[in-house]
């Protein structure tokens, strides 16, 4: 019985993240617009865009290879799987044994790999710029992410996401400075990975300032729809990880009953709303950095991760 329940919860989770991701993106855009005293597009605009793109024909360059055609599907698949493994409203997902933080980082890494290849595939210079910048960011963001994971797993004793969440919720953690540093580090990595200001402007149309957008310039039709959906899922994924690890209250433990699950969903939506608001405020208040400053930014995130781990050693040894 528990097995069937977990399976149902897992399926519900997969459907939930897929459904909510475009809504989250639309919400962030709406808040940014209001902060700039504009009306902004309606909340459901991203859904409309996805549907429109799905209906359109694909236009392929002559020089595109099979990599170019296959990449969007792989990117979407890996990102969706990664997003489905994060406990958003309930723990006890059937695949939670696979929800290792390092595995999630690896899934996202393979998605990024495919995207970079696709950007290079067509042979345009903008695609090349985007891919090389993306790899620069990745080479610093991934170690920073792993240092944060290391700190968290030192505290919780495991790299499995559900165990981390459970131990941080249950135990008397107290005022942990390392957690604050890890949170800041993870936020900086999230901003870099999702191509948000101050690392990259998601709404730019100037190719020389693009990182993520430059790699997908050649895509159209259903390919573009899949990639846009994957980008929204990735943003949702990072926000969910932060919410699950650092603000784990309200997540339903398995077997608590339908009311708890619905409550979990409600709390999750509230967390998303708060996170989206903060993200929009931060993006509006900050200016984009020049590309050669991004390594410094991510280097700082890496240092924060290191420092968090070191400080944790001091308290644990003492």
């Amino acid at each position, binding site marked *: 019985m528990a097995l069937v329940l977990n399976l149902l919860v897992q399926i519900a989770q997969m459907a939930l993240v897929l459904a909510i991701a475009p809504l989250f993106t639309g919400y962030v855009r709406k808040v940014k617009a209001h902060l700039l005293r504009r009306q902004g597009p309606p909340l459901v605009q991203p859904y409309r865009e996805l549907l429109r793109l799905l209906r359109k024909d694909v236009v392929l360059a002559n020089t595109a290879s099979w990599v170019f055609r296959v990449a969007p599907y792989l990117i979407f698949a890996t990102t969706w799987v990664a997003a489905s493994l994060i406990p958003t409203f309930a723990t006890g997902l059937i695949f939670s044994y696979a929800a290792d933080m390092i595995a999630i980082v690896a899934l996202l890494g393979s998605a990024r790999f495919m995207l970079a290849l696709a950007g290079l595939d067509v042979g345009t210079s903008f695609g090349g710029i985007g891919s090389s910048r993306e790899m620069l960011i990745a080479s610093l963001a991934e170690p920073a992410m792993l240092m944060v994971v290391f700190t968290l797993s030192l505290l919780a004793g495991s790299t499995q996401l559900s165990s981390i969440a459970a131990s941080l919720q249950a135990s008397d953690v107290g*005022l942990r400075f390392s957690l604050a540093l890890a949170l800041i580090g993870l936020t900086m990595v999230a901003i870099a990975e999702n191509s948000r200001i101050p690392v990259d402007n998601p709404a730019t149309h100037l190719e020389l300032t693009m990182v993520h957008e430059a790699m997908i310039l050649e895509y159209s039709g259903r390919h573009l729809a899949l990639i846009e959906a994957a980008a929204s899922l990735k943003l949702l994924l990072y926000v969910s990880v932060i919410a699950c690890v650092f603000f784990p209250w309200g997540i339903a433990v398995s077997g608590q009953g339908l009311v708890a699950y619905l409550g979990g969903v409600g709390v999750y939506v509230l967390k998303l709303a708060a996170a989206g608001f903060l993200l929009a405020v931060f993006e509006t208040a900050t200016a984009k950095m020049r590309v050669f400053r991004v390594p410094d930014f991510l280097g700082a995130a890496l*240092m924060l991760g290191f420092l968090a781990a070191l400080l944790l050693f001091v308290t644990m*040894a003492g």
Partner: protein
Amino acid sequence: MDPLALDVAHLFAGGLVLVSFMLLYQDRMTGLVNTFALHALVVSLSVAWQAHIQHAPHLYITAAIALIVKAIIIPLALHRIIVQLGIHRTIETVVGIGQTMLAGIGLVALSIMVMLPITAKAGTLTQQDLAFALAVLLLGLLMMISRRNAVSQVIGFMSIENGLILAATGAKGMPLVVEISVAFSILIALIVIGVFLFRIRESFDTVDIHALHEYRGEQP
């Protein structure tokens, strides 16, 4: 000792190490002075907390001195000096900021590895205060080595002093003599700094040490 008290002390001491890293990260003069003010603020909060949990009221005086002199007066004076000397521009570094930060992490790890086993018999509070104080000391030294600007070197030295204040308060019960001495050295350092920066200005158009380095020690 009460775990919450220990955690807050850890928060302040770890925060001091973090702000030392922020000092290393700065590349503008005004940002550097403001970050130093933050550094002094964190050290005074840390000392005040130590005064509270060690039941040592004389440490409040040290905290007040650190706050007033180093978090308020010296940054204000430095801001004025920067404007008067016309040196509000970027700080040149000997190696890049990234490598400096990596070296900094190495130094923090080194000081933790050295201090933790040695102070194992003293309490947890002393252990972590001394380990972090040594880290701040080494980071301040790194800053003095890796910057070519006279003002940044002076700020590096003052951050070393902050680390020493943290160490002195962490060693429980150290008599008032040391507190007077550290405060005293702050005041004198201020005088020297002020006098020197003005004197250097009178003879050069820059406080860049590189320009001064025509006269090297091994000169005949």
